[in-house]
């Protein structure tokens, strides 16, 4: 898979954001586990973890969308696309990028209203924490707007390549083929194996 110039900029930033999101998922797991143990063993409950869980999911879903976009990980069905002529592939790849940008922009626009209404009506969650809803929604909207901006940048670049008749359009913005997905999965697998091997060597007791 050949990486386009926009992804080269977006990927490292989006990756860092994804790692931060990962920590949120880990902390959530710890909080929920403590809550279960507290509830069962000490009959002491910390209410609200399920609401926080919902916020975490909503936020990581939009923040992660940018990284997935840079990695061409959003699902496309390529079976008939690969049968088309190069010219039609160019048209479909352009349409895919433009339609994604339109979709993300519309979502961001409507998302803005969600936040503004929560602020205007001072909405609070109907849970014991009484979280003011604008707080999680602000983070959610930031993720959504960033996703829309990135999708727009991809669409603009695809359009530019299309107008110029640049052959790189299909290489940059074609769907990740099964082969690409496979390579990604296998590289990850090889990394895991290497890590496991390292860890094994680091274990003195296992040397034999």
């Amino acid at each position, binding site marked *: 898979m050949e990486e386009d110039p926009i992804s080269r900029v977006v990927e490292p930033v989006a990756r860092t954001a*994804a*790692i931060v999101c*990962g*920590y949120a*998922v*880990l902390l959530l*797991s*710890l*909080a*929920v*586990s403590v*809550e*279960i143990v507290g509830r*069962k063993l000490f009959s002491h409950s910390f209410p609200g973890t*399920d609401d926080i*869980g*919902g*916020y975490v*999911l*909503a936020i*990581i*879903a939009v*923040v*992660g*969308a940018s*990284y*997935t976009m840079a990695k061409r*990980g*959003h*699902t*496309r*069905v*390529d*079976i*008939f*696309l690969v049968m088309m002529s190069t010219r039609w592939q160019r048209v*479909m*790849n352009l349409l*895919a990028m433009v*339609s994604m940008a339109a*979709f993300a922009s519309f*979502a961001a*626009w*409507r*998302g803005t*209203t*969600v936040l503004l209404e929560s602020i205007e009506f001072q909405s609070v969650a109907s849970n014991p924490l009484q979280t003011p809803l604008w707080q999680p929604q602000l983070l*959610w909207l930031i993720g959504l707007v960033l996703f829309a901006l990135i999708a727009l940048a991809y669409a603009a670049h695809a359009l530019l390549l299309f107008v110029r008749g640049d052959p790189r359009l299909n290489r940059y913005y074609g769907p990740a083929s*099964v082969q690409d*997905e*496979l390579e990604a*999965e*296998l590289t990850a*697998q090889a990394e*895991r194996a290497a*890590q*496991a091997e390292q*860890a*094994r060597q*680091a274990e003195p007791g296992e040397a034999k």
Partner: protein
Amino acid sequence: MIDLTAAVVGFALLIGLMTLGLHVAFVMFAISMLGAIFYLGTPAVMEYGTQYWGATNNFVLVAVPLFVLLGELLVRGGFTDRMYRSLSDWLNPLPGGLLHTNIGASAMFAAVSGSSVATAATIGTVAIPAFKGRNYDPRLVLGTIAAGATLGILIPPSINMIIYGAMTNTSVGRLYAAGVIPGLLLTGLFMAVVVVACWWKPSLAGAKSAPAPLGERLRRLVDLLPPTVLFVVVMGSIYLGWATPTESAALGVVMALVLCIAYGKFSIKMMHECFVTTVSVTAMIMLIAAAAFYLNFVLGLMGVPQALANFASQLGTSPLVMLAVLTVFYLILGCFLDALAMIIGTIPIVFPLITALGIDPVWFGIYLVVMAELALITPPVGMNLYVVQGIRKEGLITDVIVGTLPFLVMMLLLVVLLVVWPDLALWLPRVSFG
């Protein structure tokens, strides 16, 4: 009441645009927008933001990132090769020898992982080298791995079941319980294929290695502990009513982390890799799921579910005929759609139909998951076929496809068994949850 032809045209458009290579999430969004604009007007269109927030701020779906993270930790935790070796100690004496270990190890990994592709990649990397120089029939080796791995989504936990449960308001705990017996049954059917094939044509099975001394085999049983303990905690906490499926996933993540540390496989770098994959996969699933929830919302306001239900009762077809039609329909769709996109995209239309005919939603969830399993190994787009071929790095993918065929027949047999004895799926949730 809405004209059903509009719904049919919309559905055809949905599948058509997907196959043209547009993003699946966008296509679902676009079709629901068309419905909203033509039938409902501006308020339903403007409602999109609220619906989006509501669909993703959903505690049932929080289980998705948790199970993906749990699976990632397990894959990198490095106990799969030991688990494989220990299982082979006990399964080797069966006719077909090591082939049974592929199926058994897949089933065991499936019991802690919610994804079939992850199962195929993990078991494939351990299993394929184990067959080097043993003269097993390569097609049967590849078939057992590719087909065995599909158990990943049938044996709980299962990401596909979580999404089905969230979209149809079906209890995920019940779906999990319902998947256990069909999952074990399918494991047994797969093993039966190997036994019959190797009994009929002994040359299919390769050289058997001498069994390890009993003491060593007993000592190695320890290697089966990590997946067993995890399964017992995750499923047990749901069964005892201590935790919801989402909460049990959180417990599983913490335990998997402890196991990684205990086995010396933990590092910050490894954890970050897990995080990135988790967030990326979650974002991919949630973008499609959020669009599908909006489609559900629009169709609901348009009255499509009631119209479909009326249509189904007027048609007077028996549930049996409907299921036969659906099975053919899903087999065809599964040839070219991604398994998850296939489930999510068809639920809004198919679910009202089957509930109108009195088919149990929990039972239908299991049926749909088996259909998704079939989609994972039907060419040309069966993902598991490619994963296994990619690990093998030699020969033709046709070998993998031919090798999975007998197992494909067993999956269809499982569907028939489920239709004849619905209690295969429904008995366990009934006795567990009343």
